[in-house]
């Protein structure tokens, strides 16, 4: 507590009786980070960590996009030699793994880390230090994958890494281990962030914000966090068992010794299918937020949308076998998964109808974020339709593992998550940076993305029907795929241009965009109550919430809470359902230990693909770091 020594203050100072300027200055000081590089590395502020997370995830998006560009160059012509098979296999594996584990899931969690505390009206995410640890683990996992790729030991077994191809007998060198351990890094990061989101939403909501009246984006992130908790352990079990098979000679997946190659697929897809919804559900949360603001009315059927989110999250765990229809499963079992896969269309439809009614009965103001929502409707609904096709066993047996499926999931993921994400970036950019993004560039950005995407991916449906399998590094001239592949490649480059424009717009607007003010869009949820960008403590006063869109409901004056400390980090803990205040809990101070713990974990994880003993000494190393993390620094910290 060096700060306390530098500026003597009374032991306990509450926010009652301070004038606005002093209150703000004191709170910003208490919640701000320490100066210097150590301060930068020690911060536990959800906004700083969220921003780093978002920027890092966008860097991985750009890198993964470069790989996609190489893929499309290679496939533009038959029998082409832009890259050879070995490099191509590393490229498509790294592209897929990067986009799923280093971009799509983290970027959604990053928005959650940044926005959820603001939207529920609290001052930091729960367990701020865990958030810092999560970010460093994510960064380490990403760097690990990319450095491996540059050193020519990038994984080359596909993002699904099926055994035996990735197993001890056929997986080359350490390439599959790099894949498996990158999973561990990113899953640890994701699960930590998921626990933070859940606790923040459950316990740190502003007084009065009932669970049912939370913004839909917060609901989406809550459902996502639960899905992460129940889905991600599966892929960790799969990847850990794979490393054990490869490193110490276990036989989980070796049929010659009683293991099973299909076991790996079950474990992988038990994670892999919910994963798609872990990416898509935050996208729907973003769509709800944007539609609400730009239609200038609350989303029609608030409760119906919540039910739909929860139902989607639960059904998503009953779909995994539809990735395995070609493995020869018994009819009854496979058919069950057809029914489940078809059923999930119902909650998705429900959300769609609620949005349309909202727009129809509202008075939509068409700005870039809403344009991207329209793009989402066009693309995602088409992807949903092809999703119903692949749920049918006979159709799937034809199109499974072909470019039809490549088209399908890019429609679902880019349409369902990336379009909303870009819209959301245009929407929340003013909150994060204090400046508006350029609207004219935004419109260009949208049309290039929309046209480029469809030109790139629509032809792939036809390519799949024409028999083009996935994951081929080239194809012969005599199968009739040339024209469509060339078209697709042209579209891919238009799409890439749109991303270039997007990044350029962000970079330029961050420096010279029009100042935004608190609430440039006239939105109704709490994040727009904070300054843009928010001060370290988010809100000068913790609001008391009376309505799902508090800023629309309370026009004259805002009800607030008083009695919170200003010279130590204190938040209000409220009850689960009704959000009645329960406890004034202290919120973690800045600490360098999460970084140290992340470094220790990184050393242990990387070493353990070379030696099983690394688990033992690495575990001890992590243990020491964790003791440092949790050991109280001063007696004052306890008193407070």
């Amino acid at each position: 507590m060096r700060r306390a020594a530098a500026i003597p203050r009374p032991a306990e100072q509450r926010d009652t009786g301070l004038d606005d300027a002093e209150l703000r200055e004191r709170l910003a000081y208490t919640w701000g980070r320490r100066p210097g590089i150590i301060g930068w590395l020690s911060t536990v502020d959800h906004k700083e960590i969220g921003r780093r997370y978002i920027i890092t995830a966008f860097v991985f998006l750009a890198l993964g996009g470069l790989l996609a560009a190489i893929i499309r160059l290679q496939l533009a012509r038959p029998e082409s030699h832009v890259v050879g098979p070995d490099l191509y296999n590393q490229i498509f594996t790294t592209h897929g793994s990067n986009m799923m584990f280093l971009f799509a899931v983290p970027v959604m969690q990053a928005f959650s880390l940044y926005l959820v505390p603001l939207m529920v009206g609290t001052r930091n995410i729960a367990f701020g230090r865990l958030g810092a640890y999560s970010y460093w683990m994510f960064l380490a996992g990403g760097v690990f994958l990319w450095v491996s790729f540059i050193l020519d030991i990038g994984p080359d077994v596909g993002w699904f890494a099926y055994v035996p191809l990735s197993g001890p007998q056929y997986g080359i060198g350490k390439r599959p281990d790099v894949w498996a351990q990158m999973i561990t890094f990113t899953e640890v990061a994701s699960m930590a962030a998921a626990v933070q989101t859940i606790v923040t939403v459950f316990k740190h909501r502003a007084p009065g914000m009932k669970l049912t009246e939370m913004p839909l984006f917060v609901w989406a992130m809550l459902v996502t966090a639960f899905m992460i908790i129940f889905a991600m352990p599966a892929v960790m079990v799969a990847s850990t068992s794979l490393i054990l098979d490869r490193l110490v000679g276990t036989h989980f997946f070796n049929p010659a010794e009683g293991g099973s190659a299909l076991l790996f697929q079950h474990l992988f897809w038990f994670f892999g299918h919910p994963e798609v919804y872990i990416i898509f559900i935050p996208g729907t949360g973003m769509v709800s937020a944007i539609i609400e603001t730009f239609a200038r009315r609350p989303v029609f059927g608030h409760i119906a949308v919540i039910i739909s989110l929860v139902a989607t999250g639960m059904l998503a765990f009953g779909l995994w076998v539809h990735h395995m229809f070609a493995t020869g499963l018994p009819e009854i079992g496979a058919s069950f998964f057809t029914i489940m896969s078809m059923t999930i269309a119902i909650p998705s439809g429900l959300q769609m109808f609620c949005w349309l009614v909202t727009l129809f009965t509202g008075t939509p103001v068409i700005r870039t974020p809403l344009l991207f929502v329209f793009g989402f409707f066009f693309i995602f609904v088409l992807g949903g339709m092809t999703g119903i096709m692949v749920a049918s066993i006979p159709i799937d047996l034809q199109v499974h593992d072909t470019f039809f499926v490549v088209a399908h999931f890019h429609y679902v993921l880019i349409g369902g998550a990336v379009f909303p994400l870009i819209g959301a970036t245009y929407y929340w950019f003013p909150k994060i940076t204090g400046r508006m993004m350029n609207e004219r560039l935004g419109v260009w950005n949208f049309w290039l993305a929309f046209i480029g995407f469809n030109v790139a991916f629509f032809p792939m449906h036809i390519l799949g029907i024409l028999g083009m399998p996935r994951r081929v590094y080239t194809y012969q001239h005599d199968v009739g795929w040339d024209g469509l592949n060339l078209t697709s490649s042209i579209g891919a480059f238009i799409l890439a241009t749109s991303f270039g424009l997007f990044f350029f717009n962000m970079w330029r607007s961050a420096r010279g965009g029009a100042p935004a003010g608190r609430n440039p869009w006239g939105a109704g949820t709490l994040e727009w109550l904070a300054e843009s960008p928010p001060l370290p403590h988010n809100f000068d006063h913790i609001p008391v919430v009376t309505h799902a869109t508090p800023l629309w409901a309370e026009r004259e004056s805002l009800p607030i809470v008083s009695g919170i400390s200003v010279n130590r980090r204190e938040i209000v803990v409220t009850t689960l359902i009704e959000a009645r205040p329960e406890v004034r809990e202290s919120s973690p101070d800045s600490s360098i230990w999460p970084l140290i713990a992340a470094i220790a974990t990184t050393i242990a994880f990387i070493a353990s693909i070379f030696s099983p003993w690394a688990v033992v000494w690495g575990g001890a190393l992590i243990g020491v770091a964790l003791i440092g993390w949790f050991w109280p620094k001063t007696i004052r910290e306890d008193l407070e």
Partner: protein
Amino acid sequence: MIRRMAWMFLLSGALAGCRDWQSAANHAGAEAERIWSLTLLFTIVLGLIWLAVMIAVVLVIRRRRAAPVSAHDALIDDAGHRRNSQIVGSLLAATAITVAILTVLSFITQRPLFAGRASTAGIRLIGHQWWWEVRYDGATPAEMFTTANELHIPVGTRIRLSLESNDVIHSFWVPSLAGKQDLIPGHNNSIELLAQRPGVYRGQCAEFCGLQHAHMGLLVIAEAPDAFEKWQAAQRAAAQTPQDGDPAKGAGVFVSKPCALCHTIRGTSAGGTFGPDLTHLGSRAYIGADVLPLTPGSLAAWIADPHSVKPGVNMPPVQLQGDELNAVTAYLIGLK
């Protein structure tokens, strides 16, 4: 617009004379035909639904409205809530009904697919990195024979293939005849083919299987029953032993060089089982799992340096003199 462009490309491709011998749309098998009908039906129904949603979106965008009200007023004014709930409810019911109907149609179509699984297979298809071993069963050893990368079947007869793998997972897929089925080590799978008209249909491994996954093709030749019988009789025979000239010299080179360690030529001492059986190589249309058409030139190029044709293939380059290469090529081409 984009869709039209795509279809135009498709059409122009077809008109340019490309062979759509690997297309699910160009069905020639009973299973592929059933699936294609179902696919078309799904495409039309779902396409119309998609179109309806898009029209709704356009209507929403273009609807004329009174001057924008403040969002605060929208909170209070909730006229029409009941009607809107009814609209959402009916749309939801319509979704559920559509989905249920499509599910039932899908189940009806899948019945024959699962029906014959128990029957015994007459042909074993074994996946290797990166080629297909095809074993024809028979009542006596003399009736059995092995070939590679080319599957002959009689038209109009149900043929069950057992699908096995000795290394990694592969997937057997000949779109014109049927959907795909995986070849998984330690797991017994099978698939049924019923070719309705004679023709040559191309297939390709559909499960990523490593470096040369892209070059693991296979041809299915469906022919009239008598033609098939003739082919089968020819395949059952051992290789002819050439008497003179290059082919005879080539036969000698083949068994004295490493070739014989990996390849079998029935009727000679070459009995390796690591690579494809070459007993009747000359009768096949392609080499290298459908990488190159079989010609003396391409075969010589393949033997001289398989890795320049198919990088990473498991066949090592064999050191041969120029005349030895010519002789081996002549010998193998002659194995009809």
